[in-house]
């Protein structure tokens, strides 16, 4: 046989592979480098682990899942370009990004294409713009901040609080939401400190906090900056309670901040330390594969894939255009789909309702102090 004929047959065989044609194609755009690398890497690993898990059990409706990963470099401009590129390949569902700013600029593209987007952003405004294709994997700030403010008022009895926030969509959304809640409880904002993403030196910020002498400090910056400010707060001897959200008490923060993380408290929608058997099993599986304990973003990535599985099985077909409608108002129970880990309900805006946790870092570990039930049962 002539070499050219042989080559043609081989090429034809490669392009005609039936497994590739039958697989369900997903596209993930995440923060795999830059300031959000911790977020994106955990999210990606969670996705890969869930896909491996599902494919090993025969896939979804008998079809394997397949994902392509693209790096947004933690930059909204790059994220937009990557999402446009991903949508051009007509994925079944778009995954990511994790940063609210990147979600904000990419959501209109996915909506225009009629593709559901399951993302990790937490800024309150994301699901309040009437986008019918956007879904959360974690609580939005409008759900979590009232719980944090209630804890600061009821448990810590704080009358004045310093707010440290990162100057981006995520930080500003959190700062605005918590400030509103503080007004309800008559809590005074002793200092309102904006910081920059990627900021390395927090000496001056902490010095300002010390001057303001608040009863507690609310820290709402990304993971790496959380670690840096926790170290600086310890270095300058700030002893008042430090309260935040998932980004203050995540596994990566504990790893980076070491002893300085002890005593930090926060509300987390997802934690691998939760007293839930299915989450413990997930954690074991993740650690076995990646050799480190994931933070909540690893859980979010995993859950995104199981949201796709449960919704597709509910529809009984792989229908990209009908996916968003099927997920709105859908309650996925852990009894029926163990991969979802905890019962979760998705409302008409794409917001999620499920259990939450109040945790404290004790001896370098997250300790769940309180389990907060679903808002609507």
């Amino acid at each position, binding site marked *: 046989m002539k070499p050219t004929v042989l080559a043609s047959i081989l090429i034809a065989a490669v392009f005609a592979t039936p497994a590739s044609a039958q697989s369900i194609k997903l596209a993930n755009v995440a923060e795999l480098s830059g300031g959000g690398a911790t977020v994106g890497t955990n999210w990606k690993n969670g996705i890969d682990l869930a896909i491996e898990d599902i494919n090993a059990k025969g896939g979804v409706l008998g079809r394997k899942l397949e994902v392509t990963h693209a790096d947004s470099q933690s930059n909204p401009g790059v994220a937009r370009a990557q999402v446009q590129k991903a949508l051009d390949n007509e994925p079944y569902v778009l995954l990511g990004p994790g940063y609210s700013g990147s979600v904000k600029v990419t959501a209109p593209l996915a909506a225009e294409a009629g593709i559901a987007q399951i993302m990790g952003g937490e800024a309150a405004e994301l699901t309040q713009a009437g986008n019918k294709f956007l879904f959360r994997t974690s609580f939005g700030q409008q759900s979590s901040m009232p719980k944090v403010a209630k804890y600061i008022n009821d448990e810590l009895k704080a009358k004045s609080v310093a707010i440290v926030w990162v100057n981006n969509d995520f930080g500003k959304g959190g700062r605005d939401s918590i400030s509103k809640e503080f007004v309800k409880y008559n809590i005074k904002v002793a200092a309102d400190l904006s910081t920059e993403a990627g900021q390395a030196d927090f000496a001056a910020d902490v010095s300002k906090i010390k001057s303001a002498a608040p009863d507690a400090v609310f820290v709402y910056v990304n993971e790496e900056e959380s670690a*840096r400010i926790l170290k600086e707060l310890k270095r300058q001897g700030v002893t008042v309670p430090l309260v935040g959200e998932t980004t203050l008490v995540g596994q990566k923060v504990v790893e980076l901040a070491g002893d300085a993380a002890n005593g930090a408290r926060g509300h987390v929608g997802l934690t691998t330390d939760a007293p839930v058997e299915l989450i413990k099993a997930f954690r074991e599986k993740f650690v076995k594969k990646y050799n480190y304990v994931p933070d909540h973003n690893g859980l979010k990535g995993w859950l995104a894939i199981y949201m796709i599985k449960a919704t597709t099985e509910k529809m009984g077909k792989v229908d990209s255009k009908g996916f968003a409608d099927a997920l709105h108002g859908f309650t996925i129970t852990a009894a029926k789909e163990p991969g979802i880990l905890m019962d979760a309900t998705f409302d008409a805006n794409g917001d999620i309702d499920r259990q939450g946790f109040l945790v404290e870092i004790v001896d370098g570990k997250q300790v769940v102090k309180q389990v907060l039930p679903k808002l609507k049962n």
Partner: protein
Amino acid sequence: MSNLLDLLIAGLATGAIYAIVAVGFTLLWQTSQTINFAQGEFVMLPAFLMLGAMNAGAPFWLAIVIGIGLSMLLLGLAFKMLLVDPMLRHGVLPLAIATMALAIGIKESAKQFYSAEASPFPSIVPAGDIAIFGRAVALQSIGVLAVAVLAVVGLTALLNRTSIGHQMQAAAQNPTVARIIGVPVERMIMLTFLINAFLVALASLLITPIYLAKFSNGEVLGQAAFIAAIVGGFNQIRGAIAGGLLIGVVDNLAAAYVSTQYRAAVPLLLLIAIILFRPQGIFGRAEERTV
């Protein structure tokens, strides 16, 4: 007042590290007209070399020795022989551009071969406070300041009080005459590159526990040190030291008393003012060249 003291000490500690890096800028410029735009990445890399050694099982002290040794080999010897020497004969600008490319290469390599995520890095100074004027001051700030000052004093003593230092200065000021009087100019230039590599490794050891080990650390450090060198005077070591300390303190005071949002702009405003009103820098010497 007490806050001012805290801010001054923290600013001086950070500024001292900028000063060490800025001194490297001036050393390379004086001896070989090299503007090293990869200087920030030179500070980032040794921390990863030390972490690599620790991951391979070396204790921290040994990892420091290995990290400094490898830095001198890669960022001193190899940098000069493989990049500076071949490029310098084409002029200062091609070399400057080549160092920009090197910066990207080092940054992406650290990300590729280690991690895109930040990693914790141990401190050579123990945690805790000491009392100064009745204020609890972090040992880490004092330690960083002390090591940085020691390094600068040591370098100044080497340059001003030893024969090798005098030969280095002669090689920097007039290489032709230095050669005539028997100074081994090439060896002196190589020594400068090795000293720069040692200084960046030291800066890496001091700053990484605060900044955390991350591939992108060089961007901030390189920019701060470059501004420091220009503000202080690019052709004077004492200028680089003063510039580094000044930038560290100004940055901290600006964040506390001007605005945390505009803190990054204040050193740049200082840079613009210096370029407009004293282009040679605070301690720099005006240079005139005939074509």
